[in-house]
């Protein structure tokens, strides 16, 4: 059993960016297809086991304490654990995987440009239509927190598994909370982002689980890895202050 487990995204641009980042730090990753799924290791770091998981699984595994370290989107981490204290520590934002979690409405709604407008419309909609305005999203937790902050309560969340941007046109929701990088997909679907509707400016994060089994071997391996990844910054001492 290796001392430290690190999970990285198993596919897509996040995976490519991770590999590039490791390569730049002089870490050569050797991928193997093991019996229990995708595994890899770094040359010269035998005590570190690298697991290739989906970005969502990495967030939930960090929360569950099944892995020590993981790289995934901050949006997924914050959705999985709205309160990070005591559960996860964000070690370093990685400068890739940029995306914003935003509140978007139809651009046909010319009278709505702020969360305060949306609040008015939610209240009026509940009165006129006898039901709550629906917000389609896969970010239920982030949405609840942000809407509560904006003091909006007259709405309901409709869970969305994919293609959230299509919900207003399909008539399954009136408003969406979704992730966007350039806003092009939203525009193509006739949607606009509210002026103060950015819930989170997300990017890929190297994160540590604070509930994992941090053995002495794991700590030693983690310190060596972080030093290799970013020699200029004392990442490990910042992390160790939070470890149990």
């Amino acid at each position, binding site marked *: 059993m290796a001392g430290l487990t690190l999970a990285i995204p198993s596919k897509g641009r996040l995976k490519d960016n991770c590999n590039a980042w490791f390569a730049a730090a002089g870490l050569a990753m050797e991928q193997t297809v093991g019996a229990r799924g995708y595994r890899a290791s770094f040359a010269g770091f035998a005590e570190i086991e690298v697991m290739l998981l989906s970005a969502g699984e990495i967030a939930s595994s960090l929360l569950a304490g099944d892995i020590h370290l993981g790289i995934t989107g901050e949006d997924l981490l914050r959705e999985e654990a709205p309160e990070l204290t005591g559960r996860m520590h964000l070690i370093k934002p990685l400068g890739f995987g940029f995306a914003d979690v935003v509140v978007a409405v*139809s651009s046909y709604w010319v009278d709505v440009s702020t969360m305060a407008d949306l609040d008015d419309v939610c209240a*009026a909609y509940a009165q006129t239509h006898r039901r709550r305005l629906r917000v389609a999203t896969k970010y239920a937790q982030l949405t609840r927190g942000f809407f509560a902050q904006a003091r909006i309560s*007259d709405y309901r969340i409709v869970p969305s598994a994919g293609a959230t941007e299509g919900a207003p046109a399909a008539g399954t929701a009136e408003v969406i909370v979704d992730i966007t990088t350039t806003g092009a997909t939203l525009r193509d679907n006739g949607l606009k982002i509210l002026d103060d509707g950015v819930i989170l400016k997300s990017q890929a994060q190297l994160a540590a689980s604070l509930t994992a089994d941090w053995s002495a071997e794991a700590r030693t391996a983690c310190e060596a890895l972080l030093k290799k990844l970013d020699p200029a910054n004392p990442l490990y001492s910042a992390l160790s202050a939070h470890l149990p």
Partner: protein
Amino acid sequence: MPAFPYYNAPAIDALNSQAVALLKLFASRGYVREEPAVLQPAEIFLDRSGEEIRRRTFTLMDPSGRELCLRPDLTIPICRQAVLDNRSVPARIAYNGLVFRHQPGEPHRPTQFFQAGVELLGLENRAAGETEILSLAVESLRVCGLADFSLRIGDLALFGALVDALALPAQWRSRLKRHFWRAGYVESLLYWLGHGDGAAKLPGTRAEIEALLDARGDAPQAGRTREEIILRALDRAAEAANLRLDAKVADAIARLLDISGPAAESLANIRALLKTAGINLDPQLAAMEARLATLKALGVDPARVQFTAHFGRNMEYYTGFVFELWARDKEGPVQVAGGGRYDTMMEMLGAKSAVSAIGCAIRTERVLAAKSAGGA
């Protein structure tokens, strides 16, 4: 109480005999007991109450994919049934049963607890309804043998009437009313009233707005009618033009929201404040005084009745008079009963016209805990 309570024989006996006493009291006032199903279709709670109730509601899927929930309260299913049955009014309904609440972030709170309560639907004489329900709440605790309790009262209609008396655009009035109980937020709205809300300026004529909409013909209407959008855009433009509140009046609202203390004294302070601001809310103040008189007639010590101007309950459906009864258990103060007016609920649930409604609920397990802590 643990998150998943377990009831032993003495606990069951204590709860049962208390429930019998309460239901007997309710019956003696003409309240007929009803019991909705524990498992409810989720949509009546999720569509008609806000996200706060949804957040606390346990939902589940039945094998056919239909969304169900464990009732988070009894008021909504009882009112729903009254609407479906087209019940003649006034209707007096009593209940005693379990409700289920998810307690996010508070794992020590029970996920299920008993509530005994009453709903008074469609009584036109609102003052009489309030006297009836407030009396029942107080007498309920006494019937249970709990004599040592205090009250917190408030009235959402008082603030509503105050806002209506202000020279403000309709949207701002409704915004202020909707948020009145959220400490800090109304103050920031008042700030925006003085300094503008930073919203993009919209064109002010119907023709201009129609042109804007026509240019966006490809975008989804997303559940709102064209007319709805036009009307709100027109309101928005009009309000941007005359959005200003006299500093003296804004100050009076802020100070009024701050008022909290023994009820009689608080009412006197409100009167003085309204006089300075030149606002007449005599009917609302008279209603509050009638409630205090009710409590006095019941022998409740006036020093134990607290009025809080920005007091509103977390449940989102209250519309007017609200009250809570508090006692102490071995860990400190606990709310043992609460209630209020919810005049928009029946319409939200499908009634053809507005039906006045007021009710209260007793947290029976907390009453027992408070009694045992007080040695009663």
